[in-house]
């Protein structure tokens, strides 16, 4: 049985932890609104860009002459995986979920005897992955000191991916990130960006416009595809930022509630043992008086 003093200290410390988690929840909630807004604002750009690329792809008849970024190298040997995570912890299963998904994929790729390269964005992902797959990591980014993610950061990652592609370092590129569905649900996702996944895009817009291209399709694609890579990375970063805050908010909310429960339990314990010691003292006094 812990002493009264110990219990008192314990209660105090749990209470101050609760204060911290509560504050973190509030901060996350405020940041979430902002992040969610920018994720939503960013969606049209990437969607429309996908649409244009889809339309362009339709009009290319000869896949041989199409740019490699679109159709791939035709091989399936070397993989580049880009794992996007947060730079900060204390956000529930956010980082682990991405890493778990990524690791299953790594296992599969390696199991098939293919070559694997990894780029990590965000320091938490690097920490989790380096233990098992450290030797495959060829580059890591961290935007810890940046308050808001802008397109420049995404462009930095995108350029790196493209330059690796041009050096023939990989055939396929997959990015891992959390898709922000709502505050409680974030879905870890693997998205293949090179070669562009055109089949999965909606084939619903059947109106096959005959587009006028100026200059030629190839030239437009060459200009557009590298931009698209950066755009996809940017979209993933924005979704990730919103997911991170959402995930942190739920995690901190749970922590606050748990701390509250713990305080209640400890208070009952404290009161009980206080009462016990009072009773004990009374009994001592009474039995002392009786023996006189």
């Amino acid at each position, binding site marked *: 049985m812990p002493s009264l003093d110990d219990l008192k200290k314990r209660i105090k410390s749990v209470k101050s932890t609760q204060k911290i988690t509560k504050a973190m929840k509030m901060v996350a909630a405020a940041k979430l609104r902002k992040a969610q807004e920018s994720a939503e604002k960013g969606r049209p*750009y990437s969607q*429309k860009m996908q649409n*244009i690329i889809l339309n362009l792809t339709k009009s290319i008849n000869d896949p041989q002459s199409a740019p490699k970024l679109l159709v791939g190298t035709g091989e399936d040997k070397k993989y580049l995986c880009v794992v996007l995570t947060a730079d900060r912890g204390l956000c529930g299963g956010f980082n682990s979920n991405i890493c778990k998904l990524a690791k299953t994929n790594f296992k599969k790729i390696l199991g098939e005897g293919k070559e694997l390269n990894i780029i990590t964005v965000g320091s938490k992902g690097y920490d989790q992955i380096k233990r098992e797959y450290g030797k495959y990591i060829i580059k890591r980014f961290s935007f810890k000191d940046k308050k808001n993610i802008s*397109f420049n950061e995404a462009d930095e990652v995108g350029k790196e991916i493209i330059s690796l592609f041009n050096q023939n370092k990989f055939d396929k590129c997959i990015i891992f990130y959390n898709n922000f569905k709502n505050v409680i649900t974030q879905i870890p996702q693997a998205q293949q960006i090179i070669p562009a996944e055109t089949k999965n895009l909606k084939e619903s817009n059947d109106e096959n416009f005959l*587009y006028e*291209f*100026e200059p030629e399709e190839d030239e437009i694609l060459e200009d557009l595809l590298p931009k698209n890579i950066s755009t996809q990375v940017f979209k993933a970063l924005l979704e990730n930022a919103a997911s991170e805050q959402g995930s942190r908010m739920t995690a901190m909310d749970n922590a606050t509630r748990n701390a509250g429960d713990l305080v209640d339990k400890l208070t009952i314990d404290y009161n009980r043992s206080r009462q016990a010691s009072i009773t004990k003292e009374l009994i001592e006094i009474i039995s002392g008086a009786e023996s006189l």
Partner: protein
Amino acid sequence: MSDKFTVEIISPDQTILKQQTNEVIIPSFEGQMGILSNHIPLITFLRPGIITIKAEGEKKYYVEEGTVEFSNNNLLILTLTARDIAHLDKSKINKLLQKAEANLNTQSTDKDRYLASYKLETLKEISQ
């Protein structure tokens, strides 16, 4: 048949503009291009220049690059760098101008040189 169509300018972090208009002039890669409603479907990309939107009154945007799609009377401009000229102040323009001048001679390919020279020209035009 109305002679108006929708124009949208979208950058990665926001939708800069969405409105009805009569005519838009864009600096396409191969030259200035005027677009009226019921233009045939078109995809092209931009060089540095000025987008002019003619509705009631004129709006001008400075762009450095971008991709343009026109279909179903909807003009879509995707760009990283659209700036409303009315909100660009002199010092900012001059800064960009100096940068562009410094950049002009360091370009290696013909295409880059072509783009850089247009950038410089456009900026000079704005600064006057």
